[in-house]
């Protein structure tokens, strides 16, 4: 698949039409999707109509949008009017969006081509894409392994060369971790940078839309189109959106990169080797490496599981068969109606709803939910302090590389710890990017992650751009 930069050049010069590029993407999807299972639906007719409209616009001599003719995949929890959005759950199997999300509106306004919806963990709850009602996604690097999750379909679609850009959502690492597993770039901007209007909610204080792309420059171009204030989302931030690619500097001189040492103890050898190599390379590129202490960052993961599960228990309350979701066919009373309707949630979703509901009971509210909220506040203060002294932080994206499909222990902690390095980004509202930096001994991609303060995505993009270029 061509990069976004190459597509923009080809379409604007007339070297290739948007229709040709779209047909090439559709052919690649038809060839690989039966194996990879990244797409749950392809919008072939709509995509071709959009591509033809871009070509007509060009032939009329009109100015083309910043993503003219670029095929883009959207995760199955993002609304696009008239199209299904199921969260890969039986609960929403027949749900058709009645309006379009702001992110899709922005893509369409930028002349992008929406090519289809991608597979995901049910309701975005998971790190391996094994809880989807449509079946698991296979990692294009090794089809015996998971692509990560929950935006596993989006990451796999980019890694397999089906599309140059895909949207995901990231509540605890769901864009960055699959990016790391599949060897692509994944960006979760700071909380509020991108509108959540029309994105099916999991945990509203942590959910963010992010982008997956084959390289940092493409990711930056996508992010630029999607970012900005939206009157439909009161949590979106009213701040100018920089032209991110214009902020790529000639080198990293003067850039301070923090290494949160205590947070990195006990890393697997392969991951540690790549992280050390990245730190060494950054130094060569002119960055100043500084050891920093973020003492409470290690508590992000337990905070995350309490807070997001509690928010989910509220957000997913709407799937009662009356307001949204599957409706029970024959129920003798209202309670039975709810129970029958809500029986369509999968095991992982049910478990998170139970965790969240339990954490909010009067018995556990102070000890669990309130405590987690207070620790979250302290973690945020920790990060704020750290970013007074450094520009970005460097961490691994994930403690492991892609694991085998079906590796799904009864003890949930092993899987929950997969989010160890990505959760702090959501708990702290930080901007984060995962960029591939080499492979482990098995030949599987290893991603490293940069964190930056809110509204300073250009800093993490610049650091990742240089690291990527140096490989």
């Amino acid at each position, binding site marked *: 698949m061509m990069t976004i930069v190459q597509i923009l050049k080809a379409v604007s010069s007339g070297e290739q039409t948007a229709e040709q590029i779209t047909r090439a993407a559709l052919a690649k999807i038809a060839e690989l999707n039966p194996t990879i299972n990244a797409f749950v639906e392809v919008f072939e007719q709509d995509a071709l109509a959009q591509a033809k409209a871009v070509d007509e616009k060009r032939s009329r001599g009109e100015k083309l949008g910043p993503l003219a003719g670029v095929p883009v995949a959207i995760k199955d929890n993002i609304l696009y009017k008239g199209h299904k959005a199921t969260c890969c759950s039986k609960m929403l199997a027949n749900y058709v969006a009645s309006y379009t999300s702001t992110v899709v509106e922005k893509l369409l306004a930028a002349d992008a081509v929406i090519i289809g919806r991608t597979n995901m963990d049910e309701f975005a709850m998971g790190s391996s894409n094994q809880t989807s009602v449509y079946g698991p996604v296979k990692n294009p690097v090794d089809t015996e392994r998971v692509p990560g999750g929950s935006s596993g379909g989006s990451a796999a679609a980019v890694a397999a060369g089906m599309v140059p850009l895909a949207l995901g959502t990231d509540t605890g690492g769901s864009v960055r971790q699959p990016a790391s597993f599949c060897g692509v770039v994944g960006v979760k901007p700071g909380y509020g940078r991108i509108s959540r209007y029309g994105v099916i909610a999991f945990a509203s204080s942590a959910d963010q839309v992010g982008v997956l792309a084959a390289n940092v420059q493409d990711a930056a171009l996508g992010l630029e189109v999607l970012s900005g204030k939206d009157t439909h989302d009161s949590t979106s931030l009213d701040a100018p959106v920089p032209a991110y690619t214009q902020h790529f500097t000639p080198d990293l001189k003067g850039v301070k990169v923090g290494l949160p040492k205590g947070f990195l103890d006990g890393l697997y050898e392969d991951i540690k080797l790549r992280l050390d190599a990245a730190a060494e390379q950054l130094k060569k590129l002119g960055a100043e490496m500084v050891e920093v202490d973020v003492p409470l960052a290690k508590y992000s993961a*337990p905070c995350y599981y309490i807070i997001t599960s509690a928010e989910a228990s509220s957000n997913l309350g709407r799937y009662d068969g*009356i307001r949204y979701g599957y409706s029970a066919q024959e129920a003798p009373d209202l309670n039975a109606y709810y129970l029958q309707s*809500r029986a369509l949630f999968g095991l992982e979703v049910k478990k998170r*709803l139970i965790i969240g509901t339990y954490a909010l009971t009067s018995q556990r509210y102070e000890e669990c939910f309130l405590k987690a909220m207070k620790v979250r506040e302290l973690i945020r203060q920790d990060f704020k302090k750290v970013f007074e002294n450094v520009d970005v932080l460097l961490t691994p994206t994930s403690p492991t590389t892609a694991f085998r499909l079906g590796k799904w222990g009864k003890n949930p902690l092993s899987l929950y710890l997969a989010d160890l390095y990505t959760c702090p980004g959501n708990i702290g509202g930080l901007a984060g990017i995962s960029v591939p930096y080499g492979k482990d001994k098995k030949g599987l991609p290893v991603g490293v992650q940069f964190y930056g303060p809110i509204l300073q995505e250009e800093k993490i993009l610049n650091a990742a751009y240089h690291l990527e270029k140096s490989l």
Partner: protein
Amino acid sequence: MDITKKDVELAGKLAHMHISEEESSLYEEQLKALFNWVQELSAVNTDGVTLTQTDLAAFVRSDVPVENEALAQELRNDFAAQENACAKVKKVL
């Protein structure tokens, strides 16, 4: 933290979800592991920590009814049936 099957069943009831015997046993074990891990948070001193308060009034639009028949019709069109300028939904019970 001591989690019992009863706790799981209570949470299931509050969440309007039927939890089978098998699920109950599975969740009991998993919740025990999770909530014991969460107890690590008790090592953090949170005395005096106040949560950031949001001024909701700053984000809520004024409560003024807006008449927009075109939008209303568009919304009604999402429903299979309409009656007297209202969307008609199926009987629940």
